[in-house]
Every structure is written in C-alpha cells, then in structure tokens.
C-alpha cells in the first residue's frame, strides 16, 4: 500500500514517537523511509545574522539525524535523510511531492498562541495541502 513514507522530524519527543510509527509502517509495507528535517531561518530576519543562522541550523540538523541514521540502520530499514531550509510545512509538502511519497508522518507539537499566530499550525497546513495521506502522531 505504501511504497514511500516521508517522516518530518525535528528531534522532539512527538517526532521520536512519529519515527516509531513510521518505522513500523515501513517495515510492514516494505516501504522506503524518507526522513526530512527542516532548518527554518528566523522570521523578521536580519542580513548577516540570517546567513549565520542558516549555516548553524544546517549543522545542527545534520547532527540531529545522526542517531536516527543509526537507529534506522539497526532497524534494517531502507532510509534516506535530508536537511531542507525554509518554511517547515512548505518543505514537508515539497519533499513529499519530490519523493512521490504515499504517506506523510508528522509529530504533533503544541505551540504557544504567538507561535500559532506567527507560524501557523504546521500539521494543519500539511494536512490542508498535502497530495497524499497525512498521519499526525500525538
């Protein structure tokens, strides 16, 4: 049923749970797991600082994926890992379309009112615009 599963991963506890669910589904269906983590530049950005944050963020997210790579290898999964830069919901949907994913798995993380106003609910945006089923893990 599922041949390619995209997991949106940010290192949080819900994301770790989401990995567990995605890995289980990948094993059951023999699917390839595509793990995507998104480094987001700051909002209301400043010039030089944005460049520094992108570089730092990219390094941080690469390091975030290291334990997951080991876990996926131990679990015997076919997995590939990518760090994207940009708006999280945008990159998740773009990544799913590019990888021709059959399923997107995201963790649900509660946000403060300000973050919801500023960022919007990422999982809601993914659900609204994704071209494939979306599984939100709580």
């Amino acid at each position, binding site marked *: 049923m599922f041949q390619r599963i995209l997991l949106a991963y940010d290192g949080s506890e819900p994301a770790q749970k989401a990995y567990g669910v995605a890995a289980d589904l990948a094993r059951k269906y023999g699917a390839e797991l595509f793990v995507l983590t998104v480094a987001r530049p700051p909002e209301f*950005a*400043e010039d030089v600082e944005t460049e520094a944050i*992108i570089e730092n963020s990219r390094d941080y997210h690469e390091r975030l994926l290291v334990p997951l790579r080991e876990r996926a290898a131990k679990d015997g999964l076919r997995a590939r890992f990518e760090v994207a830069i*940009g708006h999280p919901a945008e990159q998740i949907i773009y990544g799913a379309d590019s990888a021709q994913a059959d399923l997107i798995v995201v963790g649900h993380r509660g946000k403060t009112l300000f973050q919801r106003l500023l960022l919007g609910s990422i999982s809601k945006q993914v659900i609204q615009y994704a071209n494939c089923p979306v599984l939100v893990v709580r």
Partner: protein
Amino acid sequence: MLVAARSRRRLWPTRGFDVGEVWGLAALWVGLALLATLVSIWLRIATALSEIAVGTIAQLLIGVLVGTAALGADQPWVTFLAGTGAILLTFLAGAELDPEVFRRKWKEATAVGLISFFVPFLGCAAAARYLLGWDPMASWLAGIAMSTTSVAVVYAVMLEFGFNVTDYGKTVLAACFITDLGTVVALGLIFAPFTYKTLVFAAANAVMFIALPRVTPRFFRRFGGRPSEPEAKFLLLGLFGMGALAVWADSEPVLPAYLMGMVLAGTVGKDHVLIRRLRTLTFGLLTPFYFIRAGSFVSVPVLIAAPGAFLLMLVVKVTAKIAGVYPVTKAFKAPNKEAMYTTLLMSTGLTFGTISALFGLSHEVIDQAQYSALVAAVIASAVLPTLIANAFFMPRHLLRKAHGAEASTPAPAEEMK
C-alpha cells in the same frame, strides 16, 4: 604598611572617571543583550530586531524611572562599541557576495539592483519632501534608509527550492548587493562636502580595491592560523584605518567597510572558519551595543502621537520596491503570488536601514521624530512580508505547479535581455 600603600600604583586613573559606573553600565547593556537573545529564541525572530525592541523599551522604562541619560547611550565607549559593530556587520554583509556569480551576471544584476535602489530611493525622498515637508537633506536620508534590501533574507528564500543555483536566483542575489552598494555609496557621498579630502578618500578606496585582494591572502598564508588571531587584527586595522579616513573626509565608515567586504569576498569570504570567528566577535559583543543603542533613540510617544510619517514611509517603500522588482520576477515567469512574495521579501533591510537612520540622527540631518518614523518603517518592512505570507499561506511550489511549470525542479532559467 603605610609606605607600601603609598607606593602601590593606581590601576585606573580616577580623575573624572568612575570605573564602577562603567562596569555597572556595561553589565546593564550586556544584560539587555542577553534578554534580547532570549526573546529572539523564544519568538524565533532575528536577534537584531529583538535588540532594537529591547533598546526602545529599556530607554522608555529607564527614562521614566531613573532619567533619560541613565542608559548611557551617548557614552564614548558605548558609541565606540556600537560603531565597531556597525562597521563589522557591514564588512560581513559585503563579504557574503559570491564573486563568481557576480562576474557572470553583473550586467543583469546591475540593472536590476540599480532599479531596486533608485525607485524606492527617489520615491521615498520625494514623499518625505513633498508629502511630509521634510527638508532636502532629511528627505535624501529618508530615501537612502528606505532603499535597502536584505541579501540573506532573499538568499534564504532562494535556498528553499534551489533557485540560488539558477540564473534567476543568482541575478536576484547579485542585484541585492548592488542595491546595498547604492545605499552605502549614497550614504557616504551625499552628505559629504566635496573637498580635496573627498578625493583623498576616493583614492584610498581605489588603492584598497586593488591592493587588498593581493595583500590579504599573502598575509594570511604567512601569519594566519594562530591563536593570537592575526587575521582578525589585520582586518580590524584596515576597517579602523579606512573608517578614520572616512570620518576625516566627512563621509561614513560603513562605506569603506562594505567595499572592503566585497573586494575580499573571494578570499576572506570563502574562509568559513575566519568568518565564524568574526561573527562571534560581532554578534557576541558588538552588534548588541549597536542595535540596542539604535532602539534607544526611538521615541514611542512620538510614534503613537503621529504615526503618519512612519506609515507613509512604509507604504511608499513597499510600493516602490514592488514597482521596481515585481516586473523582474514576472520576467522570469514566476506566478503572481510567488512574484509578490519575493518582491515583498526584497523590501526588507534591517541592517542598512538602521545604519542609515542612525547616521542621520548622529549627524543632525534628521531629528528624533524623523528617526523614529524611519526606524519604525524599516522594522515594519521586515515584519510585513512574513505576516502576510503566513496569513495567506499556500505552498509556493504548488503555485508554480498550478501555473504550469514543473513543481519539483527550479524554474527554467532565462537570460535577461
């Protein structure tokens, strides 16, 4: 014991100099900087923006509770640290240029960049002069502050779908450098009286342009890579020396700093380790003094009492940028919403906008009310695109798909005629 006490030399000169006050003030400023950092982490906004906000609020509260001079924004050592922060920030901004891209795309980039500079520059200057009644020099200053754009913000957008490697992305990025170059050149020359000093300053810049790319790599290869940081000292010597010459010529130190960054972009700019060390110095100590100081001069009561100037500047800036930049994005066949998003993002410009406004205030070209309006407009132009984009969120690659282009690959590159 008495003999020992008399023979002990004083470590600090005490005549007219209260050391305790300096350390206390330094603790206050660094405390405010730390608070701004925490706010920026929590709200996911640029630290520069939170520092400006903290500076504004701190001056308001401290002014009410203790007195307007208590923050010490005009203390010589605070002014020096803030000025050094602005110089280093401008140098680093110039060093972000990709010389290879610029060499290949300089004609298109120059055309787009000059339009992106001149349209808001002239539009905002005219609005300040004829709609707000500002005097000519204040109006020119308003035009300069509103003409800026942010290279890194546009770069971040281009990174999202890989447009930074397409002709479209490279042209737009190189154009942003030209726009900012227009801003610093205008800032450095418009307010400087044209005397023999200007010629000496121009000649020194020309010598720097030719000599520095040759001398710097040789010096770094011979003496670099040591814990004593000779590279940082070499660069600071150049920046301070050219800054002193700029002030002597009644110009602005950020002009040679940006030029120095641009000419060294192919050498220093490619040395990521050195750039990171310079960023540590800049963001860790210097720019908080700059942005907090810039924020402390904003008068919130004046803005609340008369918001018209700030709103007009904001509307004219965004409109002028749209008029200048939107046709370019459409020429590359971007869908309307994406073209508008890119254009709005090119309206941001926190660094050079605040530098220009603070230059005007320091040199009494503008007063505090005008300064407050300009800084508020600069900040709003950084905030607005993100708020609009998030309010009307739609994945931009889907817009491209609906428009008929391939969603998973960058837009087809088209050479500008």
